[in-house]
């Protein structure tokens, strides 16, 4: 692994059905996710997906690449800069920015497939631990 290397992307589609399914799974029925009229009334223009859905896919991408070491020595910060709306086709991205003796530093996030606009951006740090070769 070296700076510039890209992680394998994960593609996923946001649908209202998926949002509803996640609301049931998580117990988060905030109407901005499940009530179109309410979401419009607070200026969101329609329902938006739970940020946690995107977070789960980012974790999946990092786990696919770094395996157990991510679960034991991983850290990431993400910022939700634009909402995920039903109908969006998205893909995760991750790029190695720097490697030191102690850790691997990456930029991460996800973007829309059709126009590459970024909805979530962030950073990740994977300490080089006992399981760095897993994954």
């Amino acid at each position, binding site marked *: 692994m070296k700076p510039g290397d890209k992680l394998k992307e994960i593609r996923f589609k946001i649908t209202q059905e*998926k949002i509803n*399914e*996640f609301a049931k*799974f*998580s*117990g*988060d029925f*905030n*109407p*901005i996710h499940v009530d179109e009229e*309410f979401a419009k009334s*607070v200026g969101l223009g329609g329902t938006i997906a*739970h*940020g*946690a859905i995107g*977070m*789960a*896919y980012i*974790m*999946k991408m990092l*786990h696919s690449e770094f395996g*157990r070491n*991510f*679960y*034991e*020595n*991983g*850290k*990431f*910060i*993400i*910022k*939700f800069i634009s909402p995920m709306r039903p109908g969006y086709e998205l893909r995760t991205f991750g790029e190695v920015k720097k490697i030191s003796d102690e850790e691997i530093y990456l930029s991460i996030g996800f973007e829309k497939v059709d126009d590459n606009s970024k909805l979530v951006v962030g950073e990740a740090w994977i300490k080089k631990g006992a399981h760095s070769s897993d994954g």
Partner: protein
Amino acid sequence: MKKKKAMKFSELKEGEEFPPVYYEISDEKVKEYKKIFGDSETQIPPFLCFLYSFRCIFEKYSIQPGTIHAFQEVELFKEIKMEERCFKSYGRVKEKYTRRNKNYAVFEITTEDSKGNLVNRIKFGFVLPE
């Protein structure tokens, strides 16, 4: 059933603590997660732990309609084996601030396994409608 308070920016206090909640991650929840996210991993995804850990805050507060999840920080310390199902999570209000006319509250939740080992720590920011 204890009535929950609506989470309001003006009433949250920096340093306010949320007592531990104890929970067990069920097989059913693991299956549901795998169905939604198409995951085939053999261990318990830490993401599931996060969902349960929020209970320490939601025991006290209900989220107001219009609350927005603005950012998330995650630190992972321990892989969760399938046979490890019991956890303890506790939290606090790490900070609150107003930026560009939006009221942010930042929460921190720490999760430990049944032996007291640190499993993960998350921080997340909500924009609160009032």
